[in-house]
């Protein structure tokens, strides 16, 4: 029964489809989708991608000159694309579970700030407010909903590029081994 429902959900979402892999570079020879053993199955349908992009813009929003601005579009796109490939490696159970979470996120404005609107239709300020309410909610299930998005998306966003170096990280990237000074060995 559950398997049948799972298969039906997959048909509704139009999956699987191949996602665009990232291009290898000398510094990162095997980015997402670029290893010969990568299957490159997509884990997010159009609906889930839209929700994830909307969440990521708010998660990575920053204040510039006193104004709230959404996360940088290329970083947002990369994070969502990585999550797409990430979920694509998981089981159907995992993908359907995440799809359900996307539905819950769309309904989160009603549950947290009593606003009858879908999450993806809110302004950036309102989306941020909803995410804050989820994180601070007394009921841990709401916090878990935020965490399910925050952990994979923030992990992908801070893995390379400007956000990695914003942390103060001072090596070339997270792949190269540390060079140990001779006297330290």
């Amino acid at each position: 029964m559950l398997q049948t429902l799972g298969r039906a959900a997959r048909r509704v979402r139009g999956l699987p489809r191949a996602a665009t892999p990232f291009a290898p570079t000398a510094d990162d020879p095997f980015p997402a989708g670029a290893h010969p053993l990568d299957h490159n199955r997509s884990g997010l349908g159009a609906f889930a991608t839209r929700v994830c992009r909307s969440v990521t813009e708010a998660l990575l929003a920053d204040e510039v000159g006193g104004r709230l601005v959404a996360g940088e579009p290329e970083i947002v796109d990369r994070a969502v694309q990585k999550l797409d490939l990430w979920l694509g490696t998981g089981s159907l159970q995992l993908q359907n579970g995440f799809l359900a979470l996307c539905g819950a996120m769309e309904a989160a404005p009603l549950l947290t700030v009593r606003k009858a609107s879908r999450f993806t239709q809110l302004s950036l300020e309102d989306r941020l407010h909803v995410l804050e309410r989820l994180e601070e909610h007394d009921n841990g299930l709401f916090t878990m909903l935020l965490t399910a998005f925050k952990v994979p998306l923030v992990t992908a966003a801070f893995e390379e590029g400007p956000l990695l170096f914003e942390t103060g990280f001072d090596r070339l990237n997270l792949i190269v081994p540390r060079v140990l000074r001779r006297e330290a060995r």
Partner: protein
Amino acid sequence: MREAIDESRVISGRDLRAPHEETADVVVVGSGAGGAVVAATLAEAGKRVIVVEEGPFYRPADYQRFAPSESVRRMFREGGMVLAFGVGQTPMISITLGRAVGGSSLLTGGVCFRIPSDVHATWQGRLGLQEMGERSFERAYEEVERRIDVTEIPVHMRSESTRRYVEGAKKLGIEVESIRRNTGDDCVGTGRCNFTCPAGAKRSVDVSYLPSATRHGATILCDALVSGLIEKGGRAAGVEGKLLGGPFGGSSHAFKIHAPVVVLACGTLHTPLLLLRAGVGKRSNVVGRNVTLHPAVRIVGRFDEAINGWDGSLQSVYSDHFHDDGIKLVGVYTAVNFLAAGLPGVGPALRRRARGLGQSAVFGAMIHDEGGGRVRLGPGREPILSYEMAPRDLARLRKAITILAEISLAAGAKEIYSSAWGFPPIRSMDDARKMETASIDARRIECMAFHPLGSARVGLDARTGVVDQRGETFDMPGLFVADGSVLPTSIGVNSQVPIMATATRFAWELDARFPELRRAG
């Protein structure tokens, strides 16, 4: 010593274009810490061994150049998104499991502990498992530690994050000791061991045991999912399943491996699936039950000055000061992008805190839990793990957070981000103590587990356990289990060496009994 697997002995289910059938002396399901040890030990003893692994085979030269999230995506089960579903007042616990040739050993922090003496004593005394005593394990521990090059992490390899931890602990009168790890003298302190070691220092089983297994004739069949056991006359006679050569890793052709001895080493979450499907363990009704996890928490302390905690060994110290409370303190770190994801706040608050990661130290702890977990067959290929934390364990977890915050403050941290999502940062000892008693829904606590154990435990008979003290199942002769699922209670320490030592003992016993097992098969 690091060696390479003989790739001519590796067959990938992706490459096979027809159903596959083979015969061996021993078929081992799973190539992690348990399976690799059994495979190498028996191959070295002259047995024809086939190892079946669901995950793919990545060469070390490749996986050493994976970014952290790519290691998670490619080598962690379910892309690192395995959860223990908390029942009642229990956090949702994220569980890390490997799914590749080498299993979780590729993804551990490399920390090596033996099973504590008091745990061995409990197994012998309270549970009556006379062969599970410390002395019975001694030779196996020595063998494992030699093969994976276990050495103590020198003081100069400690990161500044760990130095702060030690300093804070010392101010509070908490003794701290150096950790032993399986990196020989090769660790350069890249600080991301859980996502494979870029320097190739870690002696995971794909560079320590499986090379010897393949050199002695063992075959590794990877990208092959075992779905059931072959039974003949009430005895185990092999395994069957599907090759994962279809589109997107789906099944392609069937395979069968016939062998008079079958060793399951798929880990605490997946071994029970095969046992349950085969009807093994019905009498005891303990298959899949009593799972222990060693739930772990961490806190991030922000200091005024640069810490750059990413320079240094990921884990280099521990403390048993709170052993009687069931709490083990451990120095930890992780890749900086994963640290950012664990910081509280969203939007500008998150960005601001992430900019302070260079001034942040990370302190961790894990608890010695009661077996509150249960593995069940799921609707798809993955099991469902539920976990009900005992009230005592939840109290321990919260006490651990407070202790870590106190250590951090004593070390000079100005602001502490605890494991409780959405809680304001801790800035004083008073705040830290209030955390222990504050009303918090347990599901708001960020919790991880790295050592699921105990779902097919050793027992004296079929009423109390699934396998005997030599690893053979009570219900199906010729079927053995050699992974963390056999450990009968929580052990309170990192499980890699305990699993490997247990597997070593079982493999020695199995080798000695092999003529008898082959005749019976």
